[in-house]
């Protein structure tokens, strides 16, 4: 079907979660309380790297309201390590701490305040160890080891093997190579080379991490703000030695994720508290604690590009260092994606890429919207503008000359490009150039291509009832991206149902069938398609039932608007069901699963495209950049819900605005110095661009339902590069380090050296004498 032929799909219908969210009825995990529930609070390490000599919990146990105190030495009888990629993460520090802020002890009490107040009664003796706080000191000869042993992979499918079997601080190493990059550079007419820095950032999901665990004789039930319940379930099953069906994850509405709630976070720690006290236990982190839980991988990228006299790209070489922090989390996959995504949507005949994820004694890094692409798009797109200047060409024209066409292979071994980048760029430029550039303003465009979608394993159940109502039962979590609305549209479209009569049941792993994860822009494509196929499975059953009722062959029945036609009469599905079963309230189940097979055998499932443009003004007195215009092109195949697709693009671009202009977690020595929302500056109302154009390219060229493919990250990826290039276009100042804070821009405008980085190049901190602390 084409746009214009759908009843619900491709229309901006009301959100499935809308009424609940505007009336305050929407339930998030933090809103849940269970009968007999106790509360946990965490004692965190005051050192970046230290041996734990002893923990004395006796006094804390005597405090009013305290039920139990747990430390790393109390975890007998379970496997206290988890990690889907590398099993390196103890749920409470065992033997030593690896970053300042790491949980060392948990107190369970009758109420939150009692738990909190008892924290100061726990005595911990530490022996401080030399710390590696940046990539260079972690990689230095003889550097202290963050992990003394080389770990095996966490047993989760789809990950590369770890870098080596020898312990060092390299968590993951990725190498890509095609063509002959060295030869391409030696014969090139033009080359550019540079070093770029991408900041350490915090996703700030407004709902901080929260979980409620209830461990009892029936197994373990966990309510959580997790994006990926099934992966958390797997980790918990292994920790406690439980069967998968004894671990139940229930995910209410999630208050923002942006990747930061993907994979396992505080669930093992919460579960172990409940396992210890055999009561439901709630662990609610504050924003300050959430900042100490997960961040993105900050990056240093050394990159060079070569072009011939006509501007054709000849080669790209990049060395990417990711500061992965104390635990691997998902960074091995971020490293793989960063390496793949530095290429962009361009024809690059010769490439050589090395990417290293490096352990340091800092907050663990993991998934963050963009997922490696933001880190590498900034250097590449900056450098394309530098090349354009070297060649005396317009940056848009240089991109147009090198953009791959639909069907071209941009990355050997991966799916050919499934998007029309030249078309997207034309849409973008047409919108951006509709008015002349005011004097002193700067304008820039940027493109990116991400191998998106993750593993295509998703399953769905659709229940069709005798009264015409329909339920979609699925494991995709709703964190604002709108998946509940999208599958409702698809089910209503397929079943010919009234959209209000389609209910979405999600997510309870005891009920909802398996879904690999909610992230990587995959749900519309994978779960959307699983729901579509489950509906068609139900329809096929209903048609056979109708044939049975009408005593004819199924082939004689014509599918028609929510039912079938036979001999001039229309039978709605509910009529068929009632006739077949002889009951008014019966139902049947349609089901479908996707896996890496057929047209989904080749990864990625789709290329997620970024194609954005900006216009900025710069206050040269203060160095402050203001985003005046933003244009995004969402190349989404088909927007199942146009308003939400546009909303994803604007939200993503706004996150890019934050990373580009203001967001950075700043370390001074071992200490995070801006670990709160007062000092960590996210975009506000007053940063809103004066004009926004959100364009959609709908060529129905995706592997998802009706040709849809994912969005929601693409429009973030080029934005920081656009801002840096627009700053250059406005002022002639080239800044290769984000964020473009007023101070950094001000210094650049005056030709001063920008300040030193915080994660790269500064020396490690020497240990003080043996320290005691709580």
């Amino acid at each position, binding site marked *: 079907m084409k746009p214009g032929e759908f009843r619900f799909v491709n229309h901006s219908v009301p959100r499935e979660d809308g009424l609940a969210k505007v009336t305050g009825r929407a339930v998030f995990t933090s809103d849940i309380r269970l009968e007999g529930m106790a509360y946990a609070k965490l004692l965190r390490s005051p050192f970046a790297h230290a041996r734990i000599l002893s923990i004395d919990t006796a006094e804390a146990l005597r405090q009013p309201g305290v039920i139990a105190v747990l430390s790393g030495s109390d975890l007998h009888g379970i496997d206290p390590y988890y990690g889907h990629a590398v099993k390196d993460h103890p749920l409470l520090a065992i033997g030593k701490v690896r970053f300042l802020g790491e949980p060392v002890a948990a107190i369970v009490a009758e109420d939150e305040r009692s738990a909190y107040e008892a924290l100061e009664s726990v005595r911990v003796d530490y022996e401080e160890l030399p710390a590696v706080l940046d990539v260079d000191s972690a990689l230095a000869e003889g550097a202290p080891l963050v992990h003394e042993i080389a770990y095996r992979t966490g047993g989760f499918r789809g990950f590369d093997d770890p870098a080596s079997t020898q312990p060092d601080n390299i968590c993951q190493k990725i190498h890509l190579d095609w063509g002959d990059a060295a030869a391409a550079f030696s014969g090139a007419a033009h080359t550019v080379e540079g070093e770029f820095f991408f900041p350490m950032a915090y996703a700030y999901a407004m*709902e901080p991490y929260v979980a409620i665990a209830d461990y009892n004789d029936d197994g373990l039930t966990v309510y959580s703000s997790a994006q990926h319940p099934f992966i958390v379930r797997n980790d918990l099953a292994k920790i406690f030695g439980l069967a998968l069906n004894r671990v139940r994850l229930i995910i209410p509405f999630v208050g923002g994720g942006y990747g930061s709630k993907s994979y396992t976070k505080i669930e093992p720690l919460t579960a172990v508290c409940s396992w210890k006290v055999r009561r439901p236990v709630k662990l609610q982190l504050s924003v300050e604690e959430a900042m100490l839980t997960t961040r993105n991988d900050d990056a240093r990228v050394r990159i060079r590009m070569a072009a011939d006299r006509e501007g054709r790209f000849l080669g790209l070489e990049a060395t990417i260092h990711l500061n992965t922090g104390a635990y691997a989390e998902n960074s091995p996959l971020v490293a793989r994606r960063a390496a793949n995504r530095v290429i962009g949507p361009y024809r690059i005949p010769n490439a050589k890429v090395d990417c290293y994820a490096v352990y340091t004694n800092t907050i663990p890094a993991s998934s963050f919207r963009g997922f490696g692409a933001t880190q590498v798009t900034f250097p590449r797109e900056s450098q394309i503008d530098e090349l354009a200047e070297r060649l005396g060409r317009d940056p848009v024209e240089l991109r147009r000359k090198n953009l791959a066409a639909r069907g071209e292979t941009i990355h050997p071994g991966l799916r050919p490009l499934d998007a029309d980048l030249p078309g997207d760029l034309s849409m973008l430029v047409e919108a951006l150039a509709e008015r002349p550039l005011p004097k002193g303003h700067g304008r820039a465009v940027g493109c990116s291509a991400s191998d998106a979608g993750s593993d295509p394993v998703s399953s769905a159940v659709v229940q069709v009832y005798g009264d015409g109502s329909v339920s979609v039962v699925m494991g995709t979590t709703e964190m604002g991206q709108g998946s509940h609305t999208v599958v409702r549209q698809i089910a209503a479209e397929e079943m010919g149902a009234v959209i209000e009569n389609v209910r979405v049941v999600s997510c309870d792993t005891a009920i909802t069938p398996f879904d690999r994860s909610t992230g990587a822009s995959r749900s519309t494509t994978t779960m959307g398609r699983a729901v579509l196929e489950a509906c068609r499975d139900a329809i096929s059953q209903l048609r056979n039932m109708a044939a049975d009722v009408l005593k004819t062959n199924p082939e004689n029945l014509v599918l028609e608007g929510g039912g079938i036609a036979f001999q001039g009469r229309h039978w709605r599905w509910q009529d068929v069901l009632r006739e077949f079963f002889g009951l008014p309230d019966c139902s049947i189940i349609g089901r479908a699963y996707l896996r890496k097979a057929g047209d989904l055998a080749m990864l990625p499932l789709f290329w997620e495209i970024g194609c954005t443009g900006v216009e900025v003004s710069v206050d040269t007195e203060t160095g402050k950049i203001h985003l005046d215009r933003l244009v995004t092109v969402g190349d989404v195949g088909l927007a199942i819900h146009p308003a939400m697709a546009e909303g994803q693009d*604007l939200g993503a671009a706004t996150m890019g605005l934050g990373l580009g202009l203001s967001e950075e977690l700043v370390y001074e020595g071992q200490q995070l110095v801006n670990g709160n929302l007062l000092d960590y500056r996210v975009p506000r109302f007053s940063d809103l661009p004066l004009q926004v154009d959100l364009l959609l390219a709908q060529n129905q060229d995706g592997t998802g339902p009706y040709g849809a493919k994912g969005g929601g990250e693409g429009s973030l990826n080029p934005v920081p590069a656009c801002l840096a290039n627009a700053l250059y276009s406005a002022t002639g100042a080239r800044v290769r380090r984000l964020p473009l804070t007023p101070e950094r821009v001000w210094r650049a405008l005056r030709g001063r050296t920008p300040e030193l980085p915080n994660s790269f190049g500064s020396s490690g901190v020497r240990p003080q004498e043996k320290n005691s602390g709580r």
Partner: protein
Amino acid sequence: MKVSFVLNGKPVELDFEPQETLAEVLRNRCHLTGLKVSCEVQVCGACTALVDSLPVSACTYLAYEARGRRVTTIEGIGDSERLHPIQKAFLDEFAFQCGFCTPGMILAAKALLEENPEPTDAEVVSYMDGNLCRCTGYRPILNAIRRAAGLMRQQEAQSPPREGETASEASGGGRFRTHHE
């Protein structure tokens, strides 16, 4: 300590500790979980409640300070059968995604529009700068507030005097009614 105030139009007397914040009392004692807590340092606005029609950050506002005042939360301004125009406008403009900031956002917008029924865009941006949203990029919220201003003016023109809480405020009386009554 025992403290009386008017909560969503109904007089209440509550017993709580002097150090409890309004957010703790509303969420834990009154089970009004529409009010969300995020930054806990008065930056994000997720915990916005109205006290005598003015927005406050309930995460740091001591509950006893509400004594004798009128406290309004998202639960007090409309429900799915009878949405407040701002709620309706947020739905129509897709002015939320995850929804965690939404109750605070709607209450701040209510305070704005009651103080200034026809704000310019610059006035909306300035007033709302204390409410963070990480999902939407703000423009849909700006659009919703514009639309809500129109709806509220329309409603005012069609059915004076206004119903509900605002009606009793307009009447200047000491009693407060909501449509729940």
